[in-house]
């Protein structure tokens, strides 16, 4: 898949994601900002495995920034796209605070998981692949590990309240 083709699909998906998460009319602008950043700052990346995670990170950063601005000003669309600074992907103090809060919630949630999920989560955090996890846990097949992981993720997400991030006001 060529880079332009990947970016086109990315734009479509980002608009859909932003629209479904409350960005509304700014969904197109958000997608444009993400693509602009990918084009200007990450032009050397052309694989989907690199572009997709990066775009997810930019989208999340942009959306968090927009929410903060909207809460602070009470505005959502008065900021021109050209006025939006290019994101600094380094975590800001606010980002660090949110991450600490999320880590605390996550720590409490994983402590409530079952033995299998705890073991599976531990192996994942240790950097094991699914194949290695299969061997470590003695699963019959790789699909079994996939299924276990899918259920454990769902369980952990429920323990987190349905979303990894804390609910916003």
């Amino acid at each position, binding site marked *: 898949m060529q880079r332009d083709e990947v970016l086109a*699909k990315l734009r479509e998906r980002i608009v859909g994601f932003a629209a479904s998460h409350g960005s509304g009319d700014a969904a197109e602008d958000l997608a444009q900002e993400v693509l602009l950043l990918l084009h200007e700052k990450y032009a050397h990346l052309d694989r*989907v495995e690199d572009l997709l995670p990066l775009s997810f*990170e930019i989208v999340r950063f942009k959306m968090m920034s927009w929410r903060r601005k909207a809460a602070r000003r009470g505005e959502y669309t008065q900021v021109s796209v050209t006025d939006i600074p290019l994101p600094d992907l380094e975590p800001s103090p606010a980002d660090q605070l949110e991450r600490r809060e999320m880590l605390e919630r996550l720590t409490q949630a994983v*402590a409530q998981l079952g033995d299998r999920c705890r073991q599976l*989560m531990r192996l*994942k955090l*240790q950097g094991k692949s699914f194949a290695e996890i299969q061997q470590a846990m003695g699963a019959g097949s790789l699909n079994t590990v996939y299924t276990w*992981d899918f259920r454990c993720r769902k369980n952990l997400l429920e323990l987190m309240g349905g979303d990894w991030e804390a609910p916003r006001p």
Partner: protein
Amino acid sequence: MSREDIARLLGGYATGTLTPEEQQALFAAALEDQTLFDELAREQALRDVLREPAARGQLLAALEERPRWYRRLGPWMMRPAALTAAAACLVLGAMAIWRPWRGNEAAKPAVIATALPREAPPIPSPSAVAEQKTPALSAERARARAMTPPASRAVPAAKKQLLVAQETAPAAEAHRADEPVAASGAAMPPAASPAPPPPKAASQPIVADTSIAGRDASELTKIMPGVGGAPGSGNAAVRGALSADRLQTAVATAPGGDARQRYYAAMAFAEVKAQAETQSVRARAQAQAPGSQPPLGIKWGILRREANGEFAIVNAEDLRAGDTVELRLTSNQSCGLSVFDNASGKLLPLFTKQVEAGETVDTPLLTPGEKGSRELVVELWRGGNVAGFIVSGRPAVSREAQQSQTDRSEQATYTVGPPGAQRVLLSVTLNYQ
């Protein structure tokens, strides 16, 4: 790899567990599927956190700790099935505790102050008393007891009282010549009171008043509303006292009825009076009043020894010279009883005895060898005034005490004195043909 299979790789994105092949498959699918793309985008927050080694270390430390039991139980308990099972166990446990507790409560004796009604002491039935007090009769005399119908011995005390009331019920305006006296009560000790025998069939001439014979208690109540206690009112003692009062009134005021009726009425009255006397001071006071004594009476008959040696009841006019006879006497009150032979114009005592009410006494055998009349004088008295007529040498037969007509159904004769009389005289003439 299908869409569902690829979706199962989502969990590996945040932790970096996916292999390049898995990651490529997931991302490629996410570009084509908006839902998967959204889910993957939401995993980015977790990925950002887990990217930091310190955060990973913290989570690994939390996973290494053994979870506390309540934390492990928490998610399980949130399942609906688990909630239902827990509720069922709770209910069963509560019932298991509650039921034995209730059982213990029920087993405890209730501390409640109760006032149980004091029952009146059992009063032996008059028939039983009579059976106890009646001396054993000889076989010969026992056969002659046919004079007294068996029904009179078998009738219960309550039934007897009703029968007595029946006997006293008919109200006649004037006394018949053969029924000269109106009875009145007196205090008497407990005594047996055989019920009057039921009148026999019409084939035999019955002189006794049968106008009330065969009537039941309800009819009796209509006739004599004052007789008999109100059913179901009070205990036995109260009913006994009421019955005594009403029966006394009935006996004293009933102008009709023959001597037979008054004989049994006075006997029953004495019985009820005695019961009330033991249980009621009021009844005792009334019993001690001079005018409350029941009339004194006697039932008598003539027995003749037949050719087979057995005694049979006969009329005084049916005797023949050479017959062996005796008088059978039954008093309705406890009193003194004396029998004199006046055949020679001089009273010769045959016997004297203190008898109980209902006690049957036979005179010594009389065997006159010639035709003619022979008079026997019978005296009943209360108290110790035995020598009253003996001193006079000739019994002064009370004008009020007259003999009633023989009740042919029983082949016995009743004689009852006036109310309050302390002595009753009776003359029996035996005519030997």
